[in-house]
């Protein structure tokens, strides 16, 4: 009963605090504090509800249990992190985004290819590409190469479509200006069109971050060596060791947010001139 009261009180206090924050003049601090307060409130309510209703730890472990498990199994988590994130997701992300970028620049020279590839690319980007995972695991074996391949396939088309669109985003006036400067193809590309394409490119890069993580983890469900986040999740679910599963989820969430945040930060640096970054 005490825990339930704790949950209700935590919710009320958290909400009141946020209402108070929202009324204050908007600043960087309130913008940052508000979601943090909300997050802490959620965790407190979770803890209170799990303990209050005495929910079986097998079904939904309390945050404190997850934290303990996280601290005690950092070695396993690190091995999985290296296998899935560094070897699988990151290498696939770099190969996929890099090749998509280069191909986009190449097909940009041929309007015929553009008109043909854009609809096809848009179509493929909407497909359940993750279904390719079993096939790629069959082709490239169980180790990280197959995970990287899945990631490449997943990030390729969103990146391609975005880059091609970005390269088209300059208008005739700007291109004419470059021509009056007697700038050739490469000069126009490097000085005008690539910089102008950057907001689109980063859009593709940001979409790719979560896709890469998802691809690498889900591909492990179809076969993997005895390490990796996807492997750990699927086997731990079988053993009903849900606290370990949640610890992996925490790692995935942190990595996903950090990866996305990093890209957003780089974007802010590179596209500082874009209206959406100036406020």
């Amino acid at each position, binding site marked *: 009963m005490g825990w339930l009261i704790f949950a209700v009180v935590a919710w009320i206090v958290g*909400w009141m605090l*946020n*209402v108070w*924050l*929202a009324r204050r003049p908007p600043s960087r601090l*309130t*913008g940052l504090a*508000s*979601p943090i*307060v*909300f*997050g802490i409130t*959620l965790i407190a309510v979770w803890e209170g509800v799990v303990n209050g209703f005495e929910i079986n730890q*097998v*079904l*939904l472990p309390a945050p404190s249990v997850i934290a303990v498990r996280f601290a005690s199994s950092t070695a396993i988590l690190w091995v999985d992190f290296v296998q899935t994130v560094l070897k699988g997701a990151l290498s696939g992300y770099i190969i996929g985004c890099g090749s998509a970028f280069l191909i986009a620049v190449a097909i940009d020279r041929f309007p*015929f*290819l*553009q*008109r*043909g*590839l*854009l*609809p*096809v690319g848009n*179509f493929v980007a*909407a*497909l*359940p590409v*993750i*279904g*390719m995972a*079993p*096939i790629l*695991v*069959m*082709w490239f074996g169980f180790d990280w190469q197959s995970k990287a391949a899945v990631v490449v396939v997943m990030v390729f088309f969103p990146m391609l479509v975005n880059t091609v669109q970005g390269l088209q985003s300059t208008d005739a006036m700007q291109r004419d200006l470059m021509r009056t400067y007697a700038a050739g193809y490469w000069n126009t590309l490097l000085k005008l069109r690539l910089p102008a394409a950057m907001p689109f490119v980063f859009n593709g890069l940001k979409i790719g*971050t*979560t896709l890469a*993580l*998802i691809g690498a*983890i*889900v591909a492990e*469900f*179809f*076969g993997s060596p005895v390490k990796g*986040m*996807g492997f750990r*999740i*699927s086997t731990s*679910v079988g053993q009903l060791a*849900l606290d370990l*599963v949640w610890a992996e*989820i925490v790692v*995935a*969430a942190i990595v*996903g*947010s950090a*990866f*996305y945040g990093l890209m957003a930060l780089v974007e802010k640096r590179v596209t500082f001139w874009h209206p959406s970054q100036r406020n």
Partner: protein
Amino acid sequence: MRRSVVPVLTVVGFLLVLWYAAAIWLNAPWAYDKATRSGEVLTTSTLVADTWSQEKPKLPAPHQVGKEIWKTTVEKKITSKRSLIYHSWVTLSATLLGFVMGTGLGILLAVGIVYNRTMDMSVMPWVIASQTIPILAIAPMIIVVLNAVGISGLLPKAMISMYLSFFPVVVGMVKGLRSPDQMQLDQMRTWFASKSQTFWKLRLPASMPYLFTSLKIGMAASLVGAIVGELPTGAVAGLGARLLAGSYYGQTIQIWSALLMAAALAASLVGIIGIIQRVTLKRMGMA
């Protein structure tokens, strides 16, 4: 639109040629292996014929997949467990249920975020953060846990679909509900419109183009969610189960046919929303 038909067909044709060529390249080792064991000498034409008609090829040729799809859709009874239409229906029902729930949740959250400053400041960052968690990765856990509580069948899969499809709807609807500019809002005020009137007569209609764009993304995401949600249920039914069963037994043709079926499903679902979008926006005078 018509201008791009020829280029698209060219690209698709090129992809098909590439597919056939890759089938030869990937399946050739197995064909050579078989030939040396039986003591045959392979000419180019028999090699090509063999690579395009293996039973468990590394990469089945398009016509093999086409034949498999034909066999499992038209020639099988719909009630049969081997019918691809049956499996597609299982996946489709979870997709649609999850899509409807996700859209509802997304619109509610968006309205809350637009009308409540506290929610805007505290919930919106978490909506974005929620998508950096690879939910697909924890799909098996959600299924198993819900199974233990006694919820099984359609609902767990639909919940994963819901989680994936609510995000684009929230983001799109928040943008859409905020799209009326100050001038239009002032106009509503001069007409002494109440808050709910402003919502129903200005904000909601103005958000429709944004909503439809989000719905298309949400539908595609929802299908992915349903397919992945079927993986851990022990390969009972659905396109995801077909994928998993195919990968267990090395039935590549079966995997590819399920994959193409999923692609066709995604394309037609998104296409249907596109048609509804065009009709609705035309009647509203926005297209």
